[in-house]
């Protein structure tokens, strides 16, 4: 879409976009280019000499079992977060769509986790799940005889970060599903009801299929969220442990590059991450275009 009527000026538009472009150039493009460049270089430990090594850093990376493990951890983590978060929020949205009395109260309560910082969520989880003093750990032991210890057991650690990440993301998914459900024409539902379809049947044959663009969109968004925005949760709770069992890719980049000082290796990791974001963003926008036609 284009405007028919415009203003004529050659200088003014550049002045208007200058602040945005300057920030993009200095803090986005230059560092990203540096990361790309460094991913093909090796520096000695004093940073005095730099050697051009081509794709060697990537070869090392993909032969490193720790890195491949981290890939696997990230895949498991983001899949769990996306699937659990989406199904839980879909269920809540379906019932919220039916409820009339108290709807505003329920909705208000359910959007609060969106406002809570991931790291604060992490701190709350550390407190609740602490094997020695946490209420949840205590409750699990008292009522189910279950010994909780996320410091030793990697399944427990994974459960902990998945539940924290899902809790925080419920609001977002819930609001999108609710908006999606409310945009389905009432006449469709009524027609099905006249034909004798009960609520359960109507959900699977009408609402769920019509929600599929929303679901797909949320799937991509939740993957991005699990990949990148959960760094703070992991940094506050498990620190990637026990061992490396919850060290997702973003956490590993931070540990290796920023803390560990392996410039070339971490730049190569950054480059891989960039490719992942690009793929996910392209997927997301492909979907947006489709939705416009739909």
């Amino acid at each position, binding site marked *: 879409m284009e*405007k028919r*009527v415009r*203003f004529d*000026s*050659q200088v*003014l*538009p550049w002045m*208007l*976009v200058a602040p*945005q*472009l300057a*920030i*993009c150039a*200095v*803090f*986005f*493009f230059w*560092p*990203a280019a*540096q*990361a790309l460049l460094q991913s093909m270089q090796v520096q000695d430990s004093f940073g005095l000499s730099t050697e051009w090594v081509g794709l060697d850093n990537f070869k090392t990376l993909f032969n490193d079992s720790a890195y491949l493990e981290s890939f696997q951890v990230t895949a498991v983590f983001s899949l769990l977060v996306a699937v659990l978060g989406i199904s839980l929020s879909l269920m*809540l949205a379906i*019932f*919220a769509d*039916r*409820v009339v009395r108290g709807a505003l109260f*329920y909705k208000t*309560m*359910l*959007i*609060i986790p969106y*406002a*809570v*910082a*991931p*790291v*604060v969520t992490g*701190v*709350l*989880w550390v*407190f609740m799940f602490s094997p020695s*003093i946490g209420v949840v750990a205590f409750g699990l032991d*008292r009522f189910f005889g279950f010994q909780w210890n996320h410091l030793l057991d990697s399944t427990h650690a994974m459960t902990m970060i998945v539940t924290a990440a899902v*809790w925080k993301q*419920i609001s977002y998914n819930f*609001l999108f599903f609710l*908006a999606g459900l409310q945009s389905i024409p009432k006449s469709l*539902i*009524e027609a099905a009801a006249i034909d004798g379809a009960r*609520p359960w049947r109507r959900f699977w044959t009408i609402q769920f299929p019509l929600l599929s663009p929303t679901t797909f969109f949320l799937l991509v968004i939740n993957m991005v969220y699990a990949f990148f925005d959960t*760094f*703070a949760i992991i*940094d*506050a709770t498990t620190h990637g442990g026990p061992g490396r069992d919850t060290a997702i890719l973003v956490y590993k*980049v*931070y540990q290796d*590059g920023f803390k560990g000082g392996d410039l070339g290796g971490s*730049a190569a990791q*950054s480059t891989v991450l*960039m490719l992942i974001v690009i793929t996910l963003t392209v997927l997301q926008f492909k979907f947006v275009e489709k939705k416009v036609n739909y």
Partner: protein
Amino acid sequence: MVERRTTLGIFAHAVMILGVLIVAFPLYIAFIASTHTSQAILQVPMPMSPGGHFWENYIAALNGHGGGAGSNAPVARMMWVSLVTALVITFGKIAISLLSAFALVYFRFPFRGLVFWAIFVTLMLPVEVRISPTYKVVSDLGMLNTYAGLTVPLIASATATFLFRQFFLTVPDELVEAARIDGAGPMRFFKDILLPLSKTSVAALFVIQFIYGWNQYLWPLIATTGEQMYPVVVGIRMMIAGGDSGNEWNIVMATAIMAMLPPAIVVVLMQRWFVKGLVDTEK
């Protein structure tokens, strides 16, 4: 609703209440813990109803008088840093995005498409994928431990620019023609006609960007080195470094409640714009 089904209605309420309980439980625990002494919390199980040390704990946290094994920096200072940072990021993003969207929609200039793509590409370069080089740029510019360092690198916004662009495209062309006939230049048109029309979009973005700014973690963690410039979300992470029994959990939880409060208030009070903004920006 299509038909009345009492059982299903009751079941729906039951599910909603369960959902609310799941959401509220951690918040409730945090609040309870912030009203007890640290000894009371270390008792297993901790008390489940509010205690009488509310003011004591919050004042101790604000002034940094806790005795935990981790960091004990004053939370009042952190809240101030968070507030300034979040507001500068929010208004900075809105201002520069309004200007760039205005340029992209209302002017025809060489490389316009390229500018559009340059802004778009920033979506694909989150801080997480360029940690070390961005740190280097900011430290070379002498911006570590400054408000500028905490805010400026985060101010570029593709989503806000697209939202405004989308909105400007729906503004009728007749308005521009009318403004021109009345002799208004582009900036006059922007200020007197476009800005007042954009109020709703600005409100929607305000909520989303304020929460984004307040909750930033990785970037402040890198761009600051001293307690003096920690936003509260970084500060609270430093507080729990003491381990389960070394931490003063009552102070930590008081800090957690205070760190949650401003964004929660913004979301709840501006709910209508928040939902609209979220669905419009799809971010």
